[in-house]
């Protein structure tokens, strides 16, 4: 399933043209801007047994799925990619403002999710029923959506399995370090408050 969230590269045409016999690919739209809104639309439109999301630019290599599926089959309810556990690699260096912003963000996120080293990797897979049940009442539309999702799963008392991934930053990222980063950090602070309450 491909979610078109305000793309300007003719996503609908590409998916329509690449229709394959083996894999059913569907494209659906999400007019509401934000990664959180788009992922939520995807989760709630799917009826799959296992589901997850990843960046369409293959920032995490697709082969990583071969590690994820056996874990889900084995009974893990949530398997997430991580760039900060043993065995992970960042294929390219990030610019300084993203490094500093990332450090700040992680410091805040750690308060909400003490056990998770990397909450923001765009590669997360879940048991379908679980994802659908938590996605329905999620509120964050921006990049901090990942934290909210994991927080809800942790609260249900379910373990989250982190696996190392090799990550490469895409060229066409629309993430603006200052604006989106600040908003995401503010969202996480709200989540931390909600936790305390």
């Amino acid at each position, binding site marked *: 399933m491909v979610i*078109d969230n305000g793309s*300007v590269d*003719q996503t*609908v045409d590409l998916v329509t043209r690449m229709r394959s016999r083996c894999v059913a690919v569907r494209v*659906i*739209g*999400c*007019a509401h801007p934000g990664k959180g809104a788009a992922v939520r639309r995807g989760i709630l439109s799917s009826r799959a047994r296992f589901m997850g999301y990843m960046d369409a630019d293959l920032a995490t290599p697709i082969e990583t799925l071969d590690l994820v599926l056996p874990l889900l089959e084995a009974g893990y309810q949530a398997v997430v990619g991580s760039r900060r556990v043993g065995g992970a690699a960042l294929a390219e260096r990030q610019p300084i403002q993203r490094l500093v912003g990332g450090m700040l963000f992680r410091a805040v996120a750690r308060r909400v999710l003490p056990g998770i080293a990397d909450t923001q990797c765009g590669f997360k897979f879940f048991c379908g029923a679980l994802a659908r049940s938590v996605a329905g009442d999620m509120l964050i539309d921006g990049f901090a959506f990942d934290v909210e999702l994991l927080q809800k799963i942790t609260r249900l008392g379910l373990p989250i399995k982190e696996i190392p991934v090799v990550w490469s930053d895409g060229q066409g990222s629309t993430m603006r370090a200052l604006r989106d980063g600040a908003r995401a950090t503010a969202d996480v602070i709200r989540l931390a408050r909600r936790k305390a309450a």
Partner: protein
Amino acid sequence: MSVLEQFAGRRILFLNWRDLSHPDAGGAEAYADQIARRLAQAGARLTLFTSEHAEAAPHDWARGYLVVREGGRFGVYLAAARHLERYGRRYDAVVDCQNGIPFFAPVWAPADTAVACVVHHVHQSQFDMYFRWPVNVVGRLLEGRISRAVYRDRPLVAVSPSTRAEMRHQLGFRGVVHVVPNGIEALPRSDARRAPAPAIAVVTRLVPHKRLHLLLEAVPALLRRWPELRVDIAGTGPARADLVAAVAGLGLGQHVTLPGRISEQRKSDLLSRAWLTVVPSQAEGWGLTVLEANTLGTPALAYDVPGLRDSVRHGQTGWLVPGGHALAPALMNALDELSDPVRRRLIAEKSRRWAGRFSWDASAERLARVLLSEITRKRLGSPSRRRATDLATVASWPARGMDAIHARLRQVLRATDAISQSEDGLRVLLTGCDEAQAARALRRVPVPPSRLRLATTTQLLCGTGEDRFR
């Protein structure tokens, strides 16, 4: 009743830097003229405000509407501002045509006047080609940041989906952008038959960014395969001298001709005889030459760049070559495919049908819909309920019972949504919304649609939910 007819008696002002009588008039002037003429024919009291030039009177009615000419190439912007300040109240709607720099009509016109801004092409990179510092920087600012602030909540109109993508990408527009494509005027009938040997014809203005030297450089390789190949590059312009020199330099005088400016009849004959037209431009707002060739059943080969990727349907009405790739191998493949008479007939038929989808009547109607919805919005003082998104959704119903649904739909939909009916059923193109929003908008229709799908670029461009390309 068409929306155009609802403009009888309304007063409309078009702003364009040139008019059709200007010696350098081009595609943008044809667009303004064709649509203005149709509004005037529908009974609208239409004024076109434009710049003066030596060959024209300060005002005339030659085209069926009033043309007012004031100010020079830059002075026209000031003159238009003065005109709007003085007489802005008299107009129901203003169509502000941007040619790099818009007229900033929202600043000068009364706040409750409907203003729509038409963008043919994004000029950001061209300011450097034609102007030096600091004019280029000012130009970029006026087209980008300042336009963005001035037209923030006004409807914008792009002539193609790829122009719209550039407006989002390069100019950062966040508001509603409608698509109203160029129409096409029939070329004179031609009795010329398709040439027995491969022939390529290009009829266009010869300017550097059309990059026709790339075509010339590919010719030697093609001649090895087809020694009797003919190439005609008609038209005039600043790049012609260089092209003539390149033909001589490559020793192609036997095979390539540059006949210069030609008549419409000659153009028709040339394109009818050719197997193919080639457009190596680095970008276009829209590919008029592509569609002109298509009307005569001639396919086009072009680079996969903004504008042309909308007007050429790869594999059906021509071929798109990835940017940066060489032309010769692609041309070789295309001519190979066209050597098969059955394939050629099929491509010719598809090209004709594709061109048949565009008409100035349809374009005028679509611009009228944009204007009417903005006039209504201004009168009600309400913000649009749907967010600005380029997504559009096609809802379809089976043929059974569609008349009843059709009647109800007209009350539910907005002026800019399009209904089409065929033996397959009923389809509605809802612009500016995803499937979930479309479902919500259609709640008041007694029978829910049997299918909701995101619209493809072709559907957006043609302004219809029909997807089969007959």
